[in-house]
């Protein structure tokens, strides 16, 4: 699809004589009225001349003809921006690699996404031709290894060729890329995606110059090919394998280490390219240009190019609908992340600023400047504009009020833009992880599902599914048994989704020629239930506390006393007169739970006076699905603690553990809290092995597994999952959950599969699971410095517990090292208070207290324990300092 008007202009340029509107219409297969309308427009724009007569003949203006003869700049090193600066060394290396006798050196190009690796490889090829190393018609074959990364056999066949009969479906001999590139250059992008087998074969080819197509049993084939690989991967393991075999390593600098002059040139060149493409002058607001010069583009040059394109598309839409004389890139149309560049405006050197500072507030770019044509730059370039053009045309032919045009197009075009923007914003890591084919299929499947279920799924859901799909196809191919443990329930509960899942599996079967097991359909169904607005979304319910005691009014009067003490109405009392049968009591309790089922998603804590009543807990869970814990032999203190914690929204497991601990501590004065508890991270998905495995692989490198376990877990149903987490919590301190289904539970930080593949989120994850300084180490470091307490070790342990608890109650988490800082601070504080030293002041204390009342209260409550234990009084000022430390150091893992 090419812009019609441009097409007409091109056609006219190619003809020696002019053409009439009907000739034009016939040649381009257009309606005649349309053809003459376009020609008229071109005439008005002074781009064609009319030769009056019958019929009227149109010719391009001489000026236009010149513009058409624009010399497209050759792809070559000399035309690369920074050829004499940032890229100088890389280019020298590349030239050396090409010229090295007898047939050049195999080369690998390292560089972040978007640094121009493909373009650079292409330049190397052109240089080889120019310098006579390769003949004029030598092939340049380019291939992205990610395309077939999922299927090593296919990839292998694609590169080395396939012999007829190598596998069912190989009905004839097929040359591979190596044969195709014989006598030229083979460029393999994302070479790290090659399977080990593929790498092995490639090395053999590098070493000996021979290879064997798939399915060929005898003989070797020969080919002379210079290999250029490109990769973003610079891990040591990868380097080692390739370094030994590939002698030349060229690194392309990231955008951040390019000079500002180079960046200026890039932005200017890209805008010129768009101007040429549209054959239209582009005006750029100075702020827009500055923003593009300065913003942080993690996707490097490629991202600048994409972002510019989006802005140009917006400007084009505006231009077309308002019939403006000039296409203008306005600051207000910039995506936010680009606008942020303006925050750094001071960094723009005076000299560049001045060069933009000519009389007007705009910079202008005219079409026809040199354009670097790049094979990778697909036809898509024109598509955005064409789509807009088509819309404008379709709509303006109707009887539409001109004023409404833009709003109308905006609404019609919104979907298109959203997709376009989504495509742009799609993180490369997410893209690269999954093959194009799987993405495509995932999108098709989800589009169908959205239509059938009348529900929308976000990209996170799609990503999780794509990951799952990829693993599932592998497993099916390898004949792994897929078992869904709860298939029947899923089928009943989500019958609509199940129906759709059947359709979807049909599509998958067709696309990948595999047979999807019935149980797998269950998993697909579950993916379709994701993203649904949960019925019980209203913030997790508080834990229900039920006090169950023998005696006419023992339970109720105990609860009453506690409620009065705490000024709350949390808790329910069940009195069990001695005449009442246990069964009767149970029925009463069950009845209560059933009636209040809606409010009980937080779980139920049973406080009883006799162990025998504890069996109620499991029975209630079995019958109602409400997570239930029971504690026997309660005392006023236990009820007080439980009710207090429940009323501030602490979780069931948390309350259970704490109450048990404080109970234990009454009996056994010295227990060892948290100190010896093991740490863990949970990775989870529906199958417990598909996506979870990928997640495992992703987080494993950043975790020291001698200190922290990674637990792979299946998620089938929320309540069961939570119960499982509860069990794990008795043994582990769970630092984070990473998974496909959003579980907010126990304030454990959650990372979606989508998040964890984003570098910035992974960095946060790293900080959360980061190493902590152990109690022993801290105690050792304080040896001989704190004398006012009996046991430094005990002091540190209780401080650690306090710091831990404060974070829980504040619903925050501070970075791993910061809490040891706070613990040490507290240790010295208590020491100095015990020696009778004066506390410090706090600026604007009253104001701070007012602003942070809640937080101060929580911290004060926790300090009370320390105060009584160490017989000190901690001032409000100190508490404020502490509050500030927690507040200011918290990790923002949601943002």
């Amino acid at each position: 699809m090419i812009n019609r008007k441009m097409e007409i202009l091109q056609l006219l340029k190619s003809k020696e004589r002019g053409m009439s509107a009907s000739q034009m219409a016939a040649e381009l297969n257009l309606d005649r009225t349309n053809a003459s309308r376009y020609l008229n427009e071109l005439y008005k724009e002074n781009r064609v001349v009319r030769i009056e007569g019958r019929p009227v003949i149109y010719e391009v203006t001489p000026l236009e003809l010149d513009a058409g003869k624009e010399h497209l700049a050759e792809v070559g090193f000399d035309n690369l921006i920074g050829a004499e600066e940032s890229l100088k060394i890389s280019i020298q290396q590349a030239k050396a690699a090409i010229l090295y006798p007898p047939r050049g050196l195999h080369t690998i190009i390292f560089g972040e996404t978007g640094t121009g690796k493909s373009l650079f490889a292409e330049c190397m090829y052109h240089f080889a031709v120019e310098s006579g190393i390769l003949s004029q018609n030598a092939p340049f074959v380019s291939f992205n290894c990610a395309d077939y990364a999922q299927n090593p056999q296919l990839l292998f066949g694609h590169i080395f060729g396939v012999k007829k009969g190598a596998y069912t479906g190989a009905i004839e001999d097929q040359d591979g890329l190596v044969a195709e590139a014989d006598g030229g250059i083979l460029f393999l992008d994302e070479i790290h995606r090659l399977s080990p087998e593929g790498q092995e074969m490639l090395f053999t080819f590098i070493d000996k110059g021979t290879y064997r197509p798939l399915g060929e049993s005898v003989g070797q084939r020969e080919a002379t090919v210079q290999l250029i690989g490109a990769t973003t991967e610079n891990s040591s393991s990868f380097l080692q394998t390739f370094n030994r075999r590939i002698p030349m390593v060229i690194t392309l600098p990231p955008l951040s280490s390019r000079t500002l002059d180079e960046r200026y040139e890039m932005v200017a060149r890209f805008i010129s390219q768009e101007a040429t493409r549209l054959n239209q002058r582009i005006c750029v607001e100075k702020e827009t240009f500055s923003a593009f010069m300065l913003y942080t583009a993690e996707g490097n040059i490629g991202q600048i190019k994409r972002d510019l394109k989006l802005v140009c598309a917006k400007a084009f839409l505006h231009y077309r609908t308002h019939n403006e004389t000039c296409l203008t890139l306005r600051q207000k149309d910039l995506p936010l992340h680009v606008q942020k560049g303006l925050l750094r405006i001071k960094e723009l050197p005076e000299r560049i600023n001045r060069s933009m500072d000519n009389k007007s507030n705009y910079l202008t770019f005219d079409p026809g400047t040199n354009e670097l044509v790049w094979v990778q730059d697909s036809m898509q370039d024109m598509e955005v504009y064409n789509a807009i053009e088509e819309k404008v045309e379709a709509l303006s032919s109707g009887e539409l009020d001109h004023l409404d045009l833009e709003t109308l197009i905006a609404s019609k075009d919104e979907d298109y833009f959203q997709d376009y923007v989504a495509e742009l914003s799609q993180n490369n890591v997410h893209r690269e992880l999954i093959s194009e084919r799987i993405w495509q299929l995932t999108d098709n499947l989800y589009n169908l599902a959205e239509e059938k279920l009348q529900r929308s799924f976000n990209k996170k859901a799609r990503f999780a599914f794509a990951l799952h799909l990829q693993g599932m196809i592998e497993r099916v191919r390898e004949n792994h048994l897929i078992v869904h443990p709860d298939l029947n329930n899923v089928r009943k509960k989500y019958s609509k989704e199940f129906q759709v899942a059947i359709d979807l599996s049909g599509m998958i079967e067709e696309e990948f020629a595999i047979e999807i097991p019935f149980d797998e359909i269950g998993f697909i169904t579950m993916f379709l239930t994701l993203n649904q607005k949960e019925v019980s979304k209203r913030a997790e319910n508080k834990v229900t506390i039920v006090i169950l005691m023998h005696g006419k009014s023992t339970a109720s009067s105990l609860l009453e006393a506690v409620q009065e003490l705490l000024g709350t109405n949390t808790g329910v009392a069940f009195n069990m007169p001695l005449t009442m049968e246990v069964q009767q009591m149970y029925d009463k309790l069950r009845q209560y739970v059933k009636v209040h089922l809606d409010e009980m998603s937080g779980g139920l804590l049973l406080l009883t006076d006799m162990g025998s009543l504890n069996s109620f807990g499991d029975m209630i869970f079995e019958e109602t699905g409400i997570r239930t814990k029971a504690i026997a032999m309660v005392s006023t203190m236990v009820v007080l603690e439980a009710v207090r914690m429940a009323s501030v929204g602490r979780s069931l497991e948390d309350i259970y553990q704490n109450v048990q601990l404080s109970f234990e501590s009454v009996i056994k004065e010295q227990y060892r809290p948290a100190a010896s508890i093991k740490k863990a991270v949970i990775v989870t998905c529906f199958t417990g092995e598909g996506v979870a495995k990928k997640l495992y692989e992703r987080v494993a490198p950043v975790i020291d597994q001698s200190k922290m376990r990674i637990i792979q877990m299946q998620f089938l149903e929320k309540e069961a999952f939570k119960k499982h987490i509860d069990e794990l919590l008795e043994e582990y301190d769970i630092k984070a959950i990473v998974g496909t289904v959003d579980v907010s539970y126990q304030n454990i930080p959650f990372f979606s599969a989508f998040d964890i593949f984003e570098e910035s989120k992974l960095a946060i994850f790293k900080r959360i699971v980061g190493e902590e300084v152990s109690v022993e180490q801290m105690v050792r470091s304080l040896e001989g410095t704190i004398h006012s307490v009996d046991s430094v070790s005990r002091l540190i342990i209780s401080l650690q517990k306090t710091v831990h608890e404060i974070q829980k109650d504040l619903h925050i988490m501070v970075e791993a090292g910061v809490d040891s800082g706070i613990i040490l601070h507290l240790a010295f504080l208590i020491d100095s208070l015990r020696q009778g030293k004066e506390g410090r002041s706090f600026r604007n204390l009253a104001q701070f207290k007012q602003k942070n009342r809640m937080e101060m209260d929580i911290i004060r409550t926790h300090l009370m324990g320390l105060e009584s234990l160490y017989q000190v009084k901690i001032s409000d000022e100190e508490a404020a300092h502490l509050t500030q430390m927690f507040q200011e150091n918290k990790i923002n893992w949601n943002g």
Partner: protein
Amino acid sequence: MAKKTIMLVCSAGMSTSLLVTKMQKAAEARNMEADIFAVSASEADANIEKKDVNVMLLGPQVRFMKSQFETKLAPKGIPLAVINMSDYGMMNGEKVLDQAIELMGE
């Protein structure tokens, strides 16, 4: 090597004072002439004016004040960093001294 002045800052200047003692020992062992001292965050400003500080280190619990100090120190060219978390937790004078020396670029 000229005498160096190293200033440590934490919330109250208490926990870092222990670190100071350990750093002083480390400096002595290396025959390095250094004036190492700790102050609370509120006293830091006065000390920046008063003393000819060569480098400033922050305790991890007051890392949030880093940017605030940066604006004050940058014009004077005084380097500033947060003390490595695990070195701080273990009160490792040697390593923190190394960190300070590295920051001064010597």
